[in-house]
């Protein structure tokens, strides 16, 4: 039975706590991915990001991802956390930790977890860059430039 926990939070992401949560005497390897706010995106100088969630569904989607991980790989524990609100440069917005008996599974499941989280979990990112702001989406059609 895979252990799992899923959270959205307005506080900073405590990766040490996440590693402790997925720790297990049967674990040989743990893979942690941490997404952080980058100071540049597609040529724009980014000042901060701001995240908004459909919280109840976000947690349900995270759980569905965890359930799919449990079906696909022999994994011991999964922990996913997403920060909401303002995330300054260099700070963590999202983290996924996966422990398994072997590193192959820990890597594959962690990669699947973050990739799927970023395409299905209803959390949106607004980029505040020098000269404007816009909601980030695949088509970049939702920009509202400060330059007009």
């Amino acid at each position, binding site marked *: 039975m895979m252990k799992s926990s899923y959270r959205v939070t307005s506080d900073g992401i405590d990766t040490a706590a996440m590693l402790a949560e997925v720790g297990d005497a049967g674990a040989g390897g743990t893979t942690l991915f941490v*997404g952080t706010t980058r100071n540049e995106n597609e040529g724009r100088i980014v000042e901060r990001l701001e995240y908004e969630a459909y919280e109840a569904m976000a947690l*349900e989607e995270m759980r569905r991802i965890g359930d799919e991980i449990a079906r696909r790989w022999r994994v011991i524990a999964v922990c996913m956390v997403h920060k909401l609100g303002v995330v300054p440069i260099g700070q963590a917005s999202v983290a996924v930790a996966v422990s398994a008996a072997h590193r192959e599974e820990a890597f594959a499941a962690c990669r699947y977890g973050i990739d799927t989280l*970023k395409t299905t979990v209803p959390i949106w990112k607004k980029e505040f860059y020098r000269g404007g702001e816009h909601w980030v989406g695949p088509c970049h059609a939702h920009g509202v430039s400060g330059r007009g």
Partner: protein
Amino acid sequence: MTIRVLFFAYLRERCGVREVDVELPEGASVGDLWQRLAARFPALPTEPPKFAVNRVYVDKGHPLHDNDELALIPPVSGGNQ
């Protein structure tokens, strides 16, 4: 029947609304509701977003029931990292 509709991110900002209740005849689908919303909120894009009913992704043909919660889901944050 009454459906609660939720707006997020750029759709919330464009339409200036976070949630609305919409009255629909029994048997209406998600697609029918989208038509209704498009008429009421000209700021909505012509291309529909993804839809979730009661926190599960559905397609336009999904039948609605009284007190369902429909969320308009713009593209999520993906990419960039």
